[in-house]
């Protein structure tokens, strides 16, 4: 009797759950690596991306096949994005005392960060597709990806820009602010949350509870403001 290794391998790879299983496995390894080292640069999403792309290239599998095979996960992304309303609500309730400084900083600062990023990329000669993708760089990934795609940019590339911005902001943000004598914890939290979204919020929490609360608020409001206003602004200009 011959053992049909090849047939078994093919059956596994072609099973509708293969890519879901692969993604789950790689993600959990990435989370374990992050929790063990606590290095900001080892973001589970980023590491999973790098490893999975390497695996797909090695097995010579098209992105289209992988995308179809992971629809189970992608489908839940919609309700998960809706769920961001819950932390947004809880955070808004928390910071009523300094509501006006917070709102003004969010609006002016968020607009400033967005416009500056796009203007610099444009000045450096980047293509239109890149400009549309770089615009939501400071927003939490699910929102940035939706918004970039909606405007004609690339969702996946937006995820990469968001990761780079978040990791860099979390790595140098606190020290940078200290150099410029910005020591107020609320101000520190706002800067980290507006610029470096979830990764910045995790960093702010390491500094203090108050800093973390402001970062979480800044991140959620920045996300929603961008999601609603950016496509409208682009539609008006175009």
């Amino acid at each position: 009797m011959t053992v049909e290794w090849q047939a078994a391998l093919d059956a596994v790879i072609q099973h509708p759950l293969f890519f879901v299983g692969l993604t789950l496995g790689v993600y959990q390894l990435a989370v374990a690596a992050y929790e063990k080292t606590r290095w900001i640069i080892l973001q589970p999403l980023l590491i999973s991306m790098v490893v999975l792309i390497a695996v797909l290239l090695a097995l010579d599998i098209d992105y289209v096949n992988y995308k179809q095979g992971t629809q189970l996960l992608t489908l839940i992304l919609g309700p998960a994005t809706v769920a961001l309303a819950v932390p947004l609500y809880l955070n808004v309730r928390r910071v009523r005392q300094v509501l006006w400084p917070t709102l003004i900083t969010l609006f002016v600062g968020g607009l400033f960060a967005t416009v500056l990023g796009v203007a610099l990329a444009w000045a450096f000669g980047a293509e239109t597709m890149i400009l549309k993708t770089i615009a939501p760089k400071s927003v939490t990934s699910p929102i940035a990806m939706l918004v970039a795609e909606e405007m004609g940019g690339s969702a996946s590339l937006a995820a990469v820009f968001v990761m780079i911005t978040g990791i860099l902001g979390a790595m140098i943000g606190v020290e940078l602010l200290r150099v410029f004598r910005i020591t107020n914890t609320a101000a520190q939290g706002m800067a980290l949350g507006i610029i470096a979204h979830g990764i910045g919020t995790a960093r702010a929490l390491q500094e203090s509870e108050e800093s973390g609360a402001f970062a979480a608020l800044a991140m959620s409001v920045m996300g929603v403001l961008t999601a609603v206003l950016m496509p409208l602004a682009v539609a008006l200009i175009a």
Partner: protein
Amino acid sequence: MLLRGLSWLVAFQLAGTALNVLFFPVIPGPIIGLVLLFIYLMLRGGVNESLNEAAASLLRYLPLLLVPPAIGVMAHMDDIKADFWAIIGALVISLLVSMVFIGWLMQTLINRQARNKGKL
């Protein structure tokens, strides 16, 4: 309990999709769902336990859900190569400048509010 919260999230997502087609073609459906849920929570004045549980469980795995769409970057390697330095330059410089600007703005506004309260 978890199931009831999940049902609410799905319902809001579907309502968002309907409104996207009807009135707001430029705003993605899930974002409209997010705003609707936020308004609902403001009106209701609190988050019930099932919704809180469902939201927390989904958000815990958000990075995992984002992996498949993010892998699509495979198709954009050439775009990144073409604009590599423009992208890095724009990301790094705008990060440094806006971070300091935002921190300074918030600190100044808070100090001013505190001073004004002191006068009253």
